[in-house]
């Protein structure tokens, strides 16, 4: 199972194993990463599962859909170039060790 390192805004680090095929959001929520809210349950509909991906990992991620690009303008903490919605990232073996930064708030 790929391991992902979540870094909170206070720099606390948590290493979490996430089943392949699950989304980054699902793995986070199921492991009490409460900084991920995911109001819509993973439908790319609400922009409350916003994360910042450590730049070195960005090219391992799936392309953004038009909906995700559009919604990233609606996040509570303004988007940066490494912003993604974690519900849109399905875990693959290549993401093992990925570092994900969490925003201070989602709503």
């Amino acid at each position: 199972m790929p391991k992902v390192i979540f870094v909170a805004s206070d720099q606390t680090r948590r290493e979490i194993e996430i089943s392949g095929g699950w989304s980054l959001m699902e793995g986070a929520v199921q492991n009490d990463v409460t900084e991920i809210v995911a109001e819509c349950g993973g439908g790319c509909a609400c922009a409350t599962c916003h994360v910042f991906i450590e730049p070195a990992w960005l090219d391992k991620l799936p392309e953004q859909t038009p909906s995700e690009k559009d919604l990233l303008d609606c996040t509570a903490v303004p988007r940066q170039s490494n912003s993604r919605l974690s519900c849109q990232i399905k875990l693959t073996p290549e993401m093992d060790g990925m570092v994900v930064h969490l925003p201070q708030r989602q709503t």
Partner: protein
Amino acid sequence: MKRFIIVGAGQAGLQVAESLRRGGFDGEVLLVGEEASLPYQRPPLSKKYLLGEVEAPRLLFRPADHYAKLGIACHLGVPVAKLDKENRIVYLADGAELCYDRLALTTGARVRELTVPGAGDPRVCYLRGLNDAENLRVRLSQARRVAIIGGGFIGLEVAAIARGLGCEVAVLETQSRVLQRVVAPVVSDFFARIHRERGVNIQLAQQVSAIDATPDALTIITADGSSVVADLIVAGIGVLPNIELARASGLLCDGGIVVDEFARTSDPSIVSAGDCTMHRNLLYPRPHRIESVQNAVDQAKVAAGTLLDHPVAYAQVPWFWSDQYDFKLQMTGISTGYDELVLRGEPEKGAFSVFYYADERLIAADSINRPAEHMVSRKLIATPGGCYPKAQLADTAIDLKTIF
């Protein structure tokens, strides 16, 4: 040590429990639920779960060890038999008696059942809980012809899934358009069209009068004498709030468990939240009952605040969503009583928004495949004053995000 009991282990019940802990409550928290499963997400049941794309464990909000870590004791698979609010005791059906200092009722809603002759056949299905979804998933995989009674969200979502599985699908709706209770005609017409284009036989203004069940088939007989033959019937004709326990205990109920803007019932030790409540939301002049994830979560937070003696009045703009084929409908606000519509974009192109005005005030918006417009609408509607130039909202050359 103080003990707070939560009756109803759905989305609202879980939220009350977690908000109590996050709010610093250090007494006992007991979560009591009729279903055997740990709290799980219901929205995917009529979507990905029916398609077989997600399995039940993936629907759980939290893993099993989460509850122990947070100190939430779960009593699942046992209905509550009786509530004695004078002595503050919850009686479970298995004989257990649980005393409480304070109580939250998050009992949700159940499906309204068909009452026409023949409706008791096991091939007439409903969809609310995990067991219903599991039953329906198996039956759908064996059915060739599916008839759906009710052109609301559940009916249309199941229709989309059944078509995706290759079934012949008919939808029978009593009103003159689908989704009549919740959206404007332009949105109803859009959804009727996309279903028809994908081969769904949508029949409007059709009253079901009986179901003739034989071993080979189910025949729906309608009031105008026509018939629809199917292997499987799914009825999605609304829900009823679970208020019986509350009412029998003497709590005030009126189309739901009556609560104020602090989620307080007529008993000072009892709060209630979610689909089961007839509640006050300070943004609206009259109480209402709504069925949504948003209300379950936000009202549960209010209820937990009240239990912790940190009351915060409920004042949130409601929002809802529905997935059908590749279309995502997102609604916000309450459109009841609108007197003017503003259309943004072209329905023919499959992505548009509709804004509802009342007395020149923006009160609601529906967005189809326009998630960012939905998010902006939520902010626009929540902002007091709510007057936005209609020409701007209608002009797709202007990015809505720049208005706010």
